[in-house]
C-alpha cells in the first residue's frame, strides 16, 4: 500500500465513483455497446435454455479441442478491441498536424497505445497460438487429450479472467500509460500512481502464469503422449514448432513473472527494486522484461512458421522439402532467441563489443529463418499447388515476410539501430511480422482446421476477400509507416510539428480501413459458412488431402479423437497410410478411458479475478477472503480422486458406425 494514499475507505479501498469515466463519451459509448452485446448473448443463451449445455460441454470441459476453440474465440473478441485501439491511434495521428491537437488528449492516447500493445500480444496473439496448438497438437501426435487436462482448463480460464481484468480497467479506473512492457521509472508509483499500471501488472501476472501452465502441459504432452512409432523425427513440423515454443515458454515466462512481481512489490509495499532512490535500478527491469520479451517474439512466430510448413506441404500435394533442415532451423531459432535480448536497448549505453555481440547474434536468427523460406520455396517446386484459402495466406505471407526479414536484420545492426531505434521503422517492422507472419498464419489455421472442429468447411469466397484485403491493407497501412521511420518519426508521438508527414499518416489510415474490411470479411465468412453448413459439410474428414493424423478421423473430431491409437511409420503419417492403402477399422471398438470435466478451473479463476481486483483497489478484506477461498478450492480439488470415466463401448461403436455409413454414402 502506498503510504501517502489519502482517505482509504475501509470497504472500497481507493475505489470511488470517480473511477468510472462518466466524462468520457467514447468510453461511455463503448461501455453501452459492451453491455448491450452482453445482454444479447445472455438473452440468446436464456432463449435456448443453453445454460446447462454451456456448463457441461464448454465451461467445465477438459477436452483439448473445446479449450482450443474457446482460446481462439477469446482471441477474436480481443482482436476487435485491439483493432478499435489501432483505428483510434491512426485517426489521431492522421489529424494531429499543423498545430491541431487531434481528438485524443495525451493521457487518453497513451492509454490507447499501451492497451493496443498489451491486448494484441497477451490476449490476441498468445491465446491464438495457444488455442491452435491446443487443438492441433494432440490430434497430430495421435493422442486423446493433453497430459494434464485440468491444467488446460484452468489455464484457459485464468487467461480469460486476465483479459476481463484488463478490459474492466476501461470502465472502472484507467489503463496503464507506460507502454506495453511497462518499463520503470515511468511505470513506478512516483510517476503513475493510478490503478492503470496495477491493472496491467495483475493482468500480465495472471495470464503469464496461465501461459506457463499451458506450456508445461503441452511440453509434457508432446514428450510423453505421441502415438507408437512417432519418433521425434516423425513428428509434423507444426508439432516440432510447438515443442520448441513450449520449451521457450517454460524457460522465458518465469522472467516475466519475476519482473512483474518485483514491480508489483515496488508499487504495493514500497520496496525499491526498480525505483530511482534507495538503491533501486530500473535497468534491472529492462533486462528482466526483455529476457522474457525477446523469446516471446519467437514464441509467437515459431508456431506460425510451423503452420506454413503444414499448409505448403498439404496444398502442394507434396512432401515437405528438407524436413531435417526445418527441424534444425526451428531448434536453432529457439536457442539463439535466448541470447539476443539486448538488441531492445542498444541505445542505453552498453559497450560497443556488447552491442556488437548481441547484434550479430540477432542477425544469426536470419540464417535458419532464411533456410525455412527456401524450404517452402522448394516444396512448391515440382508440386501441384492448390490455391485454397490457407495456401493463399501462405503465399501472401512469403512476400510480406521477406520485407519483415530485411527490416529485422537492419534493426539488428547496432550502429543502424542508433538511427532507427524507437522510430516508426521499428514499429513497421514488428507489425510486418505480427500481421504478415503471425496473424496470417492464425487466420489460415482457422480456415484449415475449421472442418475438423465443426464438421464443415468455411466458405472460400469471403476467405479470399479477407486474404486480399489484409494483404493490400498491410502494404497500404505500413509502407507509409516504414517511410515515416526513414524520415525520422518517433513512435508513440501524439502530435506532429512537421506537416510534410501528414500524407503518410492519411495513407496509413486508409490502409487500416482496408485491413478492417479484411476483418469484416472474415466475420462474414464465418456467418455465411454457418448458414450454408449443410452444403459445406465435410464428410470424409480429409477435405484438403491432408498429410497428418488429424485428417484420418471424422470431422468434427469425436470426443475421444482416435477410436484406435494409430501406429506411425513415417513423417506425414496419414499420407503414408493413404499411400499404403490403409483400411479404416469398422468393428472391435472398445470403451475409451477419458478425463472428467471439472468446475475447479472456472471457480478458482473467478476467485483469482476477485483477488486481483481487490488488491488493485486496496480492498484488503476482499483480497483476504478471496485468497483464503482460493486456497480452499485448490486444496479441496486435490481431494477429488474420481477424475476419469469411460466412454462406453456402444457409444464409440455408434459414433464410428455413423462415420462408416457417411463414408459409404460418399462412395
Amino acid at each position: 500500500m502506498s503510504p501517502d494514499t489519502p482517505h482509504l475507505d475501509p470497504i472500497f479501498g481507493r475505489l470511488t465513483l470517480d473511477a468510472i469515466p462518466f466524462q468520457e463519451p467514447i468510453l461511455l459509448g463503448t461501455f453501452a455497446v459492451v453491455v448491450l452485446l452482453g445482454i444479447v448473448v445472455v438473452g440468446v443463451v436464456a432463449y435456448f435454455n443453453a445454460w446447462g449445455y454451456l456448463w457441461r460441454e464448454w465451461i467445465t470441459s477438459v477436452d483439448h479441442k473445446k479449450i482450443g476453440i474457446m482460446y481462439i474465440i477469446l482471441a477474436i473478441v480481443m482482436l476487435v478491441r485491439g483493432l478499435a485501439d489501432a483505428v483510434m491511434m491512426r485517426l489521431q495521428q492522421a489529424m494531429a498536424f499543423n498545430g491541431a491537437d487531434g481528438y485524443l488528449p495525451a493521457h487518453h492516447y497513451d492509454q490507447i497505445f499501451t492497451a493496443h500493445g498489451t491486448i494484441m500480444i497477451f490476449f490476441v496473439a498468445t491465446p491464438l497460438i495457444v488455442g491452435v496448438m491446443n487443438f492441433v497438437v494432440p490430434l497430430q501426435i495421435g493422442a486423446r487429450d493433453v497430459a494434464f487436462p485440468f491444467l488446460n482448463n484452468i489455464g484457459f480460464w485464468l487467461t480469460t479472467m486476465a483479459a476481463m481484468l484488463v478490459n474492466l480497467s476501461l470502465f472502472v479506473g484507467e489503463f496503464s500509460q507506460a507502454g506495453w512492457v511497462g518499463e520503470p521509472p515511468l511505470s513506478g508509483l512516483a510517476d503513475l500512481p493510478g490503478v492503470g499500471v496495477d491493472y496491467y501488472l495483475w493482468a500480465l501476472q495472471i495470464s503469464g502464469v496461465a501461459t506457463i501452465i499451458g506450456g508445461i502441459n503441452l511440453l509434457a504432452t508432446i514428450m510423453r503422449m505421441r502415438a507408437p512409432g512417432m519418433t521425434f523425427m516423425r513428428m509434423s513440423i507444426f508439432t516440432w514448432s510447438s515443442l520448441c515454443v513450449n520449451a521457450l515458454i517454460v524457460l522465458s515466462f518465469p522472467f516475466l513473472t519475476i519482473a512483474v512481481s518485483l514491480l508489483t512489490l515496488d508499487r504495493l509495499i514500497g520496496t525499491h527494486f526498480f525505483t530511482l532512490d534507495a538503491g533501486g535500478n530500473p535497468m534491472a527491469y529492462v533486462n528482466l522484461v526483455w529476457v522474457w520479451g525477446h523469446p516471446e517474439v519467437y514464441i509467437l512466430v515459431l508456431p506460425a512458421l510451423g503452420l506454413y510448413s503444414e499448409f505448403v506441404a498439404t496444398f502442394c500435394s507434396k512432401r515437405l522439402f528438407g524436413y531435417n533442415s526445418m527441424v534444425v532451423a526451428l531448434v536453432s531459432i529457439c536457442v539463439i532467441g535466448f541470447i539476443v535480448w539486448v538488441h531492445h536497448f542498444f541505445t542505453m549505453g552498453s559497450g560497443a563489443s556488447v552491442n556488437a555481440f548481441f547484434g550479430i547474434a540477432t542477425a544469426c536468427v536470419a540464417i535458419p529463418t532464411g533456410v525455412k523460406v527456401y524450404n517452402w520455396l522448394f516444396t512448391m517446386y515440382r508440386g501441384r499447388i492448390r490455391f485454397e484459402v490457407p495456401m493463399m495466406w501462405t503465399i501472401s505471407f512469403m512476400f510480406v515476410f521477406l520485407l519483415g526479414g530485411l527490416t529485422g536484420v537492419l534493426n539488428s545492426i547496432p550502429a543502424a539501430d542508433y538511427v532507427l531505434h524507437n522510430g516508426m521503422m521499428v514499429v513497421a517492422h514488428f507489425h510486418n511480422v505480427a500481421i504478415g507472419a503471425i496473424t496470417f498464419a492464425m487466420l489460415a489455421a482457422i480456415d484449415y482446421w475449421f472442418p475438423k472442429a465443426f464438421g464443415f468447411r468455411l466458405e472460400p469466397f469471403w476467405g479470399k476477400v479477407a486474404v486480399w484485403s489484409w494483404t493490400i491493407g498491410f502494404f497500404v497501412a505500413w509502407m507509409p509507416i516504414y517511410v515515416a521511420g526513414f524520415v525520422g518519426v518517433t513512435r508513440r508521438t501524439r502530435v506532429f510539428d512537421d506537416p510534410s508527414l501528414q500524407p503518410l499518416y492519411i495513407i496509413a489510415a486508409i490502409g487500416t480501413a482496408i485491413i478492417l474490411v479484411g476483418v469484416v470479411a472474415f466475420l462474414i465468412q464465418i456467418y455465411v459458412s454457418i448458414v450454408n453448413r449443410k452444403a459445406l459439410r465435410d464428410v470424409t474428414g480429409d477435405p484438403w488431402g491432408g498429410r497428418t493424423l488429424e485428417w484420418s478421423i471424422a470431422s468434427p473430431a469425436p470426443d475421444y479423437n482416435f477410436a484406435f491409437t494409430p501406429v506411425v511409420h513415417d513423417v506425414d503419417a496419414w499420407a503414408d497410410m493413404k499411400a499404403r492403402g490403409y483400411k479404416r477399422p469398422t468393428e472391435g471398438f472398445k470403451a475409451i478411458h477419458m478425463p472428467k470435466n471439472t468446475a475447479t478451473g472456472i471457480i478458482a479463476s473467478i476467485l483469482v479475478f476477485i483477488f486481483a481486483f481487490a488488491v488493485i483497489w486496496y480492498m484488503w478484506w476482499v483480497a483476504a477472503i478471496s485468497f483464503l477461498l482460493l486456497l480452499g478450492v485448490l486444496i479441496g480439488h486435490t481431494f477429488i480422486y474420481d477424475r476419469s470415466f469411460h466412454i462406453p463401448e456402444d457409444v464409440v461403436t455408434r459414433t464410428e458406425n455413423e462415420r462408416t455409413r457417411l463414408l459409404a454414402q460418399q462412395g
Partner: protein
Amino acid sequence: MKLHHFYALLPLAAILAGCNAVELNPSGDVAVQERDLILYATELMLIVILPVAFLTTLFAWHYRHDNKSARYEPEWHHSTPLEVVVWGIPIIIIAVMSVTTWKTAHTLDPYAPITRLGPDQPVPPGTKPLVIQVVALDWKWLFIYPEQGIATVNEVAAPINQPIEFRLTADRTQNSLNIPAIAGQVYAMPTMETELHAVVNKVGEYRGKSSRFSGTGFSEMHFWFHGLSTEDFGKWVAQVKTAGGTLDTATYQQLQVQSVSEPVHRYGSVDPQLYKLAVDQCVGKPGNLCLSTIRANDFKKGNGLCRPNVSASN
C-alpha cells in the same frame, strides 16, 4: 551519395519524394555513415530477397494445380546440393554483414570520440570537443555549456566541423536525445550518465526530439538544433550571455515541475556544480541524500540503503 546507393534507394525514392527524409540526407558525418550502413545492409540482403521473391512468383504460377504440363514429383523432398545452397547463402551473407556490424559498432559507438569530420577528413590534432551537458526533464530539454558558462532550455547550438561531446542524464523519466540530421541517439536516464559524440557539417536548422516515450508531454518534447559557423556560434553564446538569468538550484527546481511545450529559456550563467548534482539526484537536497554518498555508504557499511538519513560523517 555513391551511385550504387542510388539504385538501392530507387524503390524508396518514389515514396519519399516530397518528404523531408532527414535520415537519408543527413548533415552530420556520423549520421551520414549510419545512413550508408543502412543502405549497404539493405543491398546485401536484397541479394537474397529479390531472387526468392521472383522464384516464389514463378513457382506459384508454374506449379499451379491446373498446369498439368508442369513436372510433379510428390516424393521429392531432399537434395544435398540444394541444402548446401540453402544454408550456405544465408550464412555467407550474415557472415559478411557481421564483419560490418562489429566494425561499425565500434567506429560509430556513441561513446567513441569523433576522429573524423568527413571522409578523408580527420579531426585536426589538438581540437577540443565542445562539451554540452544535457538533462532531460519532464518534459523539456536542458542544455548546459560548462565551458561557456551558459544554459538553454529546448534550444541548442553548435559550431560546424567541431566535435560535440554530449553528456546526458535525466531528472525523473528516461528519454532519448535524438537529432536525426547529425547522429543517432542515446538514452538520457536518471541516476546515470551517458555520452553521445557527434559533429555537424553544414550550417542549418535541425529538428531534435525525445525518442523514448516518457509520459504526457513526450510528443511536444522537441527543440531546434542550430548548426552555426564558428563565428556565429560565438555570437550566439554572447547573445545567451547577455540574456541574463542564472541557472542555479532554485531555477532548476522550477524546471523540475512537469510542463508541456515549454518555451525556449536562456541562462547567461550557470551554477557549475548543477549538472553533477542533477546526475546525483540531489539538486537542492542535503549532500547525504546524493546517490553517490548513499552508494559509498552502502559499500562501507551496507547501511546506506536502509538508513539514508545517516549523516555523511558516518
